[in-house]
């Protein structure tokens, strides 16, 4: 659904749209205030993903800014068929964070600082419950996997390791790692489609 001039005009007159879809449409229409609204809503979530991958607060905050800038530049590429706005943003967040992590490991600058996590404050109550529900559902789905499959998936997903790297890290044969990865993803996807996905 491409933004029309009418949409943009409407959003200019009626500021601060609530629905994420509308926020991104407004961004695609060039409304910089919509970027602010997107940031208000998702900065902490993006930060959480970046921290999970990078384990370094300073780096994570740099990635947060990169992610929202990319979202601004690519707002017109998003559409509802592509899944929810949060999924879109968090996917960008994971990609940018992994890129940064790989760049650091190439330069031999792996961070080993412990997570300086702060609890998220200020998220409105309804959304916090929604997020927690989704997280719980995902965690339950993950918990149905055998530990080795879950670990292989986690190493690939959160640390960006390849199958060869996972085999080296865990001391398992490459063939075993490949099988585990395949099974893990298939089972997870089945489970997710059963329980239904929210965005």
């Amino acid at each position: 659904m491409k933004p029309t001039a009418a949409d943009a005009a409407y959003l200019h007159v009626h500021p601060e749209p609530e629905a994420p879809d509308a926020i991104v449409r407004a961004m695609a229409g060039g409304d910089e205030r919509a970027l602010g609204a997107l940031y208000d809503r998702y900065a902490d979530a993006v930060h959480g993903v970046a921290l999970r991958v990078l384990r370094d607060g300073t780096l994570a905050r740099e990635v947060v800014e990169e992610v929202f800038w990319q979202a601004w530049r690519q707002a017109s590429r998003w559409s509802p068929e592509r899944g929810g706005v949060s999924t879109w943003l968090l996917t960008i967040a994971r990609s940018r964070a992994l890129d940064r992590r790989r760049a650091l490991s190439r330069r031999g600058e792996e961070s080993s600082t412990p997570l300086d996590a702060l609890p998220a404050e200020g998220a409105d109550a309804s959304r916090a419950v929604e997020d927690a529900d989704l997280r719980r559902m995902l965690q339950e789905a993950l918990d149905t996997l055998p530990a080795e499959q879950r670990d292989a998936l986690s190493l690939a997903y959160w640390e960006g390791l390849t199958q060869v790297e996972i085999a080296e890290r865990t001391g398992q044969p490459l063939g075993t790692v490949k099988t585990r990865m395949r099974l893990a993803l298939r089972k997870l996807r089945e489970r997710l489609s059963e329980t239904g996905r929210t965005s």
Partner: protein
Amino acid sequence: MTTAGAMSHGEAQEQLEAFALDALDGAERAVVAAHVAGCAACRAEVEAIRDDLGTLAHLAAPVAVPADERATMRSRLVARAAADRSGNVTNRMASPASAGDRVRSIDSAPSRRGGGGWMLRAAAAVLLVVMGGALWRTREERDLARTALLARGERATALERENGRLRGELDGTRRMVEALTGPSVAVVDLASDGRAAARARMFWNQATNRWTLVAHNLPKTAEGRTYELWLLTADGAKIPAGTFSPDAGGRAVVEATYELPAASLKAIAVTEEPAGGVPQPTGPIVLVGAAR
């Protein structure tokens, strides 16, 4: 698994999950990517897997961005977006019907639509706005790049300075090791005269005429006062060899160069004097030691 030539569809399907996860290594990834590029079914599947994987990202709980950083980051983003209109100008210009016609008319010959002069001017105006926006964006990005480069340059300069300082320290340490060791180094122990804890040791390298005093547990000097080192010779001369203050731990290292015949040294002393030192000792003796 084929190594040469294209991968079969069946083989590729086995690898699609890992491919979507970016968990394939170099050569394997290239082979699968080549198949996916030419296979609509696999492409669709990869996209579906990536959508599912995207959901997993929600597993990471939100973590608050610190409040002050959050505010400045937000304003930076919004300001940058406001300046970055040209990225969206063509979208906005294209959607309203009339502007779209004008943009299209840049390509088509004005005479086809009639009223050529007016169309040409309008087209030129649109082009100028679009180009101006593009230039503005370029300049803004250039400024940002310049700021980043300056910051990097400053850091490089600071690192150079630190490197220079460390080299200086290393040279100093090397000199000290030379001064303290070797066959021609004589050692004089100094002890406190009443201030029980204070003590010192003088290393006299007679080959280089370099004197190094290392003192411990020296009390901090009072305001306007300092310690002064003296070389006392056999014929009664008291040679000033420098002033110093201990660090927070009561430690001091003093270095001086003075040529003295080996047999001439009778004793070494440290006194407390007015800041800046005096040509001959006036204050109380803090440390003293006799040369053998």
